[in-house]
């Protein structure tokens, strides 16, 4: 009996194999193409990022007159050398030094210039670079920072909670303060919402305040981490914000309020006893090769006239007062 190939079961089975083989091969090619695309996409992402990374802008030295110009601390206002000593560093010392500079000028006829708030660290670096003649510090220096520097602690400032003039209350309970830092709604006695202003972590004023009230440290750290309240990075900005926002409170220096006659009030903390005095030293930092003018000013701030002036402003006497080494 004759039979066509398609009619034979064996032939049909082989036919199926013949049919399925190209399909399997094509599917394998498709899978390979797909995997290649996936691999290519990953490579594309890495390549794209690497391309952006290679485009890192590395600023080179500019051939500008700036390069040949000496630091400002060594120049006079009109460019002639030498000039009045330039002091810069922690903004915490500026209110006291502004007051002392005026007194120094009146007493000696010499002047000193005060630079912007650079922070203690910035002041130390500027001094090391010779950009300033003396730096201002509001904290104890690390050993590495203090190396080769003379420290003239001319006053000690007290840190308090300062409140804007629209705050009707004179005190705040420590629990309300903790709740306020935690972001809970806290109102003053007139029903107005209380606000808080924070300083950046490592600020000497906040650290001094928290050394006095260590129980509040977690609340401060939590508030700083969550950025729940505005974080200010200079005493100047804290001062301006407290003044402009009448219902806010923040850690501020009591003596600065008086020296600058700021419209701020000290807010007492009820139900809390400070572990120690909430204070920080105000120090002038001098290089070993400090000029005579600088040394003269340092001697002045430690002298009786300056110390009396500082005492009247509420500052406690620094370690140099009363014959301490300038």
């Amino acid at each position, binding site marked *: *009996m*004759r*039979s*066509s*190939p*398609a*009619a*034979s079961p064996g032939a*049909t089975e082989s*036919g*199926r194999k*013949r*049919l399925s083989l*190209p*399909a399997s091969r*094509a*599917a394998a090619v*498709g899978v390979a*193409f*797909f995997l290649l*695309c*996936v691999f290519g*996409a*990953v490579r*594309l*992402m*890495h390549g*794209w*990022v690497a391309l*952006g*990374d290679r*485009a*890192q*802008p*590395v*600023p*080179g*030295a*500019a051939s*500008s007159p*700036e*390069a040949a110009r000496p*630091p*400002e601390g060594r120049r006079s206002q009109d460019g002639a050398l030498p000039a009045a000593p330039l002091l*810069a560093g922690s903004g915490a010392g500026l209110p006291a030094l502004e007051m002392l500079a005026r007194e120094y000028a009146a007493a000696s006829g010499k002047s000193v210039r005060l*630079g*912007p*708030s*650079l*922070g203690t660290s*910035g002041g130390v670096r500027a001094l090391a670079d010779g*950009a*300033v003649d003396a730096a201002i510090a509001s904290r104890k220096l690390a050993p590495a920072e203090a190396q080769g520097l003379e420290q003239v602690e001319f006053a000690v400032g007290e840190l308090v909670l300062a409140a804007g003039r629209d705050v009707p209350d004179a005190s705040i309970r420590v629990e309300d303060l903790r709740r306020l830092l935690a972001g809970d709604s806290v109102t003053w006695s007139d029903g107005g919402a209380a606000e808080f202003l924070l300083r*950046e972590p490592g600020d000497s004023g906040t650290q001094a305040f928290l050394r006095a009230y260590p129980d509040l440290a977690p609340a401060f750290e939590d508030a700083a981490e969550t*950025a729940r309240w505005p*974080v*200010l*990075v*200079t005493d100047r*900005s804290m001062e301006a914000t407290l003044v402009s926002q009448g219902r806010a409170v923040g850690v501020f220096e009591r003596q600065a309020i008086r020296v600058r006659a700021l419209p701020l009030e000290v807010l007492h903390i009820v139900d809390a006893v400070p572990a120690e005095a909430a204070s920080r030293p105000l120090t002038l930092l001098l290089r070993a090769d400090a000029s005579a003018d600088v040394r003269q000013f340092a001697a002045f701030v430690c002298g009786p006239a300056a110390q009396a002036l500082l005492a009247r402003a509420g500052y406690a006497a620094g370690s140099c007062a009363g014959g301490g080494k300038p």
Partner: protein
Amino acid sequence: MRRALPTPLPLTSRLSRLLLPLAVAVAVITALAAPLTWFFLSYRELQKGGADYASFLASQVGTLATESPDLWKYATPKIAGQVRSSLGVAPAGRVLVVDSLGRQAFAEGTEHGPMAWSSVHIPAAGADVGTVVVGVSCARLLKTGTLLVLLFAVVGGLAGFLLFRVPLKSLGTAEEHLNRAVEELAAARDALESANAQLEERVRAKTASLQEAHRRLEDHQEALQTMAARMLSVQEEERQRIARDLHDTAGQILTAVRLNLEVLRGQLAAARGGAAPQPGTPPAIAAETAALADRATEAIRSAIHALDAPLEQAGGLARALRDVALQFGQADLSVRVASADIPPGSVPAAVEICLWRVAQEAVNNAVKHSNARDVVVSAGLSGASAWVEVVDDGDGNPSAIVPGVGLRSMNERVTLLRGHLSITAGEPRGLKVRADIPVPRNDGTG
């Protein structure tokens, strides 16, 4: 010619060729479109975040640099902290602030893997005093992007696989059914062919059997024809023997009776004196008996002539037919032979005798029963047969003919030779009797 069954179409292969690009495209698009889109948008967002951060920091630093061109860089860490707190979240990466001399004023963060860099100049009093460079780490972006690609690759691969596999599997099942149907069809066709072959075999066997029967029948017919020819020959011989017997016995006796009656009539007439015999008298009776004897002698002579007229003696069929015409021709009846185109020896003797006897009987019938005035006899060869035709102008009617001995004799003679006898109406009147007898060809067939 047998047509092959259709080979099953490679449906699975064809569909796979159609579906594969589609499935791969779906898989690739599914796997890559969303992750790559997310990646590039996120990269741009990352870069924009870095650029925004750098711009903001540069503007803040620029403000300070305007006030204090030499000290701004020492305040940069505080300003960077201010910016970081103002923007809420610092970019995870590297922040560099360099002055116009390329000296680093501030640096924070570390480089984690590849970075997306942005740089903004620090403007101060109409000049660039430095540059803020912000690099945002792309390590997390890359890691997340890669994970997304892999995750979507799994989804896309699955989608592509399903898109490719499900229709293919369904079609494969359909194709399997189709192939099975083709197999069943082939088996059915084989069975049909087998049955057909058996039927053909049986038909061949039956045909052979019929051919054998036909051959035997032809043999029988041939034997029968031979026997008929032999019978006719015997019949002719018998007729001649009867004719001789009649001539030798009855004819001689009647001649003797006639002679005796003449003698007797002469003696009776002499006895009466030569007077004319009176009716009823012996001489008259003798004379009448002599006349009867003459008539009997004449009848016997006619019978002898009818029985004993062999073709050999007549000189062939044409001469025999003319003898018939002469025999039956009378004063008021014309019997003539119009044509007799059958050469001697061209047909078997049995056929010639049959044609002659048919013509003899037909002319006899026309003379005796049709009141015809004219009878025409024709004979000839036509194709594979010899024929004879007798046409009269009498009053015969084919439908009114009652078959008698003569007609049956004609029919039997013609049938024995496998011929055909027909009696039809003549034109314009009378009857036409025609006999067609097949003549064997020279090769022995027929």
